[in-house]
């Protein structure tokens, strides 16, 4: 039996939830970034899966969106990690819980 | 006759597959792939053994000594002795090492190098794994090496390892850019990312003696040189071997490896060298095409491996000739010279294309490259003239 669209969607849901888990429950800034990257990968998987299972003749739209999203994810990771380094230099911490200077 | 000799390996494979025709449907592609993998490993492990002894002998000649000549006739069995020595050595793992990471790193390095070898066309119809985005596959797999080197450095829990890994990653990341940008003109002119299409585009001869290889055009020649230098850096060869500079940081990321794991690193380094040279042959030197139309009767794979051996000889030659560069020199060279030149080559290739790919295009693209080259050399000239050396002796 060949895998159906449903199976791919379940995998990507699981991936997304794991990403969410990492982003919400860890305190280290890099873990949060890792979670976000996982969620983005899950979204890309969805795009490609829907493209593949769409009715023929297919436009390569899903594929192109995935390519653009990978490019944006790379930019996001670069800026995010630069921010982590900048914050670390300033406050000597990478735990997001300790960055609470704006707390009243 | 020459045709059957050319296709002898393909026929052999088909013959083996026809013997196994009784097997179920799903088994045939798997067995076909396994034959490809086996052939690839067999050929390149043999080449590795040969080159490891030849390198030492050639280096010896260049340095006025004999090189290995004790084991077997002319020292030709040296690789066998080395292999046995490596296999029976103790496998030392540092007590504080990150064991899993330390273990996976050499496997990953070797796997990346072998995978990269899989997409190169070795002869007519002789691409082990012909995929549409072969060039991209090559670089995607090649970029895994950086991570593997980092894992080796981190897993060893040793400051020399870590330093070596940092140096290796820094220079590999820097030179990946020119490496990829210099393949871009070729991809642009051919209009395909598959190595087979690139080789096919370099078919044909002018006056039946001048092959239509991309290295015969100004942009192709310049790109070939840049590609070759980047390849030297990517495979951590002298004069860019700072990541494992013995006199500075022991053996870099390989310091804490011994026995067979060290041998795996060593093998991966050579396989990476083969892969980069193979890609250079594919991209610029016409792949498996013969240099003169009259020599077409010689099998295609012979030409490929002849060109590959020539490039490998240059690798060894460079190693025997040049001293090691400094880290900052390597970085400056990458970002200030290689990168602008690589961008220029894209423009030069476009000029060549739009001038009709003839003599006019040849001259115009030469003009573009020469102008940028002269301007860059002017800009980057630090005007730091060396003072005459004076000596002060102890009074």
């Amino acid at each position: 039996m060949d895998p159906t669209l449903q199976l791919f969607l379940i995998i990507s849901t699981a991936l997304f939830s794991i990403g969410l888990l990492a982003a919400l429950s860890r305190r280290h800034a890099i873990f949060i970034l890792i979670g976000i990257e996982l969620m983005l990968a899950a979204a890309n998987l969805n795009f490609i899966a829907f493209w593949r299972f769409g009715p023929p003749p297919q436009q390569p739209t899903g594929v192109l969106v995935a390519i653009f999203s990978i490019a944006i994810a790379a930019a996001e990771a670069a800026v995010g990690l630069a921010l982590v380094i900048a914050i670390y230099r300033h406050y000597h911490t990478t735990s997001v819980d300790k960055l609470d200077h704006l707390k009243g | 006759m020459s045709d059957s000799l050319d296709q002898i390996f393909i026929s052999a494979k088909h013959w083996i597959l026809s013997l196994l025709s009784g097997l179920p449907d799903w088994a045939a592609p798997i067995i076909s792939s396994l034959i490809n993998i086996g052939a690839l490993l067999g050929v390149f492990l043999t080449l590795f053994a040969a080159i490891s002894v030849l390198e030492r002998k050639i280096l010896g000649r260049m340095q006025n000594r004999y090189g290995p000549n004790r084991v077997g006739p002319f020292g030709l069995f040296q690789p066998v002795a080395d292999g046995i020595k490596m296999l029976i050595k103790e496998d030392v793992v540092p007590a504080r090492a990150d064991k899993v990471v330390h273990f996976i790193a050499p496997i990953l390095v070797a796997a990346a190098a072998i995978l990269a070898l899989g997409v190169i066309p070795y002869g007519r119809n002789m691409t082990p794994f012909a995929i549409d985005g072969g060039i991209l596959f090559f670089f995607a797999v090649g970029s895994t090496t950086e991570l593997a080197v980092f894992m080796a450095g981190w897993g060893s829990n040793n400051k020399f390892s870590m330093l070596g890994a940092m140096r290796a990653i820094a220079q590999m990341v820097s030179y990946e850019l020119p490496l990829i940008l210099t393949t871009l003109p070729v991809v642009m002119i051919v209009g395909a990312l598959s190595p087979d299409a690139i080789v096919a585009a370099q078919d044909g001869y002018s006056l039946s003696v001048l092959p239509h290889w991309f290295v015969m055009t100004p942009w192709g020649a310049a790109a070939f040189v840049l590609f070759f230098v980047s390849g030297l850096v990517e495979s951590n060869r002298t004069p860019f071997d700072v990541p494992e500079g013995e006199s500075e940081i022991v053996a870099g990321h390989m310091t804490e490896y011994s026995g067979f794991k060290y041998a795996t690193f060593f093998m991966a380094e050579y396989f990476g060298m083969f892969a980069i040279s193979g890609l250079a042959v594919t991209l610029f030197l016409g792949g498996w095409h013969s240099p003169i139309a009259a020599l077409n009767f010689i099998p295609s794979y012979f030409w490929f491996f002849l060109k590959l051996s020539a490039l490998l000889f240059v690798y060894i030659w460079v190693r025997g000739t040049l001293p090691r560069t400094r880290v900052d020199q390597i970085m400056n060279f990458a970002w200030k010279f290689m990168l602008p030149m690589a961008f220029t080559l894209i423009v030069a290739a476009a000029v060549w294309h739009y001038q009709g790919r003839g003599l006019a295009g040849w001259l115009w693209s030469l003009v573009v490259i020469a102008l940028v080259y002269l301007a860059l050399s002017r800009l980057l000239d630090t005007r730091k003239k060396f003072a005459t050396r004076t000596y002060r002796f102890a009074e």
Partner: protein
Amino acid sequence: MNSVAFLLIAIITLAGALAAAALPRLIHAALSLVVAFVGVAASFFLLGAEFVGLVQVFVYVGAVAVLIVFTILLTRREVTGERGINWGGAIVALAVFGGLLWTILKTKSLALPAPQIEPLTVKRIGEALMTNYVWPLQCVGLVLTAALIGALVLVMEEKREEK
């Protein structure tokens, strides 16, 4: 498409992702993240989008993973490991997973088999990128350049003050 390959890829991807989310040491998490990314790339291959799979490996393994690893090295001094995960986050993630899973399983029209398609060659993607998608491509180029410069400025500024 092969269900054995699908099963293998799914297990590898999810195991890598779980390890990336749960492992206590940051370096191990980053390396597990790479496993998850390779798994996602493999499922792209399985779905017939070879090019995206290659781009995924190239960008994530070659660039993003190296960036993460470098950042970990540069911010290493903090040794106080975090203890205990935030259970609120875990509950939210589980709820999202449960909700989405319920929706997917309930939608019967999603149990599609894959239709036959012509292979998506690099040439087709390139043509699409250069015709209909030129403006998005240019914008992505601009965003990437801006991000590159921004990241450089962010990291370099502090250095100037220290002098």
